[in-house]
């Protein structure tokens, strides 16, 4: 298990995943240089790294660690374009936690 699991979450799950690495699919709301705001069931502040290329209005999938302030420190960001069905993506998050036996190991 060299690659850690990265459970898919939304803004509402942040407090349950402090200090863990997560995966978030959201829409880029705002870019502020070193940080950005993405909307994934609520706004999330993300701390960017040098390799992340976000575009406002685009969907982006972020892998990163949730810190104490419930911000996500980005490890990797993948552009998902502008044609993402967030209802489906949010349904995946719901399934992830409801049927976590096939998605991630508990604490």
């Amino acid at each position, binding site marked *: *298990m*060299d*690659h850690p*699991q*990265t*459970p*898919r979450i939304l803004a509402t799950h942040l407090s349950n995943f402090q200090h863990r690495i997560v*995966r978030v699919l959201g829409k880029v709301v705002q870019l502020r240089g070193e940080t950005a705001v993405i909307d994934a069931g609520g706004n999330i502040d993300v701390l960017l790294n040098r390799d992340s290329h976000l575009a406002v209005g685009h*969907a982006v*999938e972020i892998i990163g660690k949730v810190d104490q302030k419930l911000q996500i420190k980005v490890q*990797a960001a*993948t552009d*998902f*374009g502008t*044609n*993402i*069905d967030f209802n*489906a*993506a949010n*349904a*995946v998050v719901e*399934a*992830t936690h409801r*049927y976590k*036996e*096939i*998605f*991630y*190991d508990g604490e």
Partner: protein
Amino acid sequence: MNYNSYETGYNTSYGAGGGTGGGGFVPGEGSQQSPGGRRDYSKDNLRPVTVKQIKEAQVDSGDVFKIDNAVVSQITFVGQICNISAQATHTTYKLDDGTGSVEVKQYIDSDAVDQPNPNKAKLVEGAYCRAWGKLNHWNDRRYVASQIIRPIEDMNEVSYHLLEATAIHLYFTRPAPGAANAGAAATNGGAGQQQAAGGGNHGDYDLRTCSPMAKKVFQQLREMPQTNEGIHQQVIAAQLKMDMSDIAAAGVELQDSGLIYTTVDDQTWAILEPEH
């Protein structure tokens, strides 16, 4: 669940000697062979899974894997490429779907090297792709031997796949909502079977619309030992101790229903193998 069977094509062959003589349509030898001689393709399946399910699949025996207690032959999943290593005989992609990561080996088809795969250029680190293949293990390491890996163009496929994998997982682990309904609607054959309980077992054949006489003849035809050529109606009449005209009428009825067909002459009948 019987997803499909590819067997129907093997059941019939055209008589070789019948060029002008009215065309022999003779069930091929293949269908008469003893079972077990060939692999049972009807149990083959293709299952959408998460990497966590791959990691946790149980080894049943040898290289048979089970997920949710169901044997899996082929799997498909979606993941992000986190590493690529090209070897002489194969390329290994490490795919991560957020639930874990697994190696996918794609062997190089030496016959196809001349035609570069346009997909391959898009399979780069960080890209999402979908892989199809067979779960394998070697030295306690699990990997997927894949025939096809293609890049994902529409990122919604990632969501789609994970939801599909969830749905199939639930199919195998939970009683279906309204399971009683599903059971009843499962197969027409099931209904036919129940209905046939009174007059013997008609298997997958649907005899609901047939007269009692036709059912009797069909049952007799089914139970008698016979060759590819089927059985002459006189033999059936003798067995059932029934009138030839009744047997002939039943024969017409069964032919009209597509349940039997004539072989060497109009009076010799064989059962038409049902298509599944």
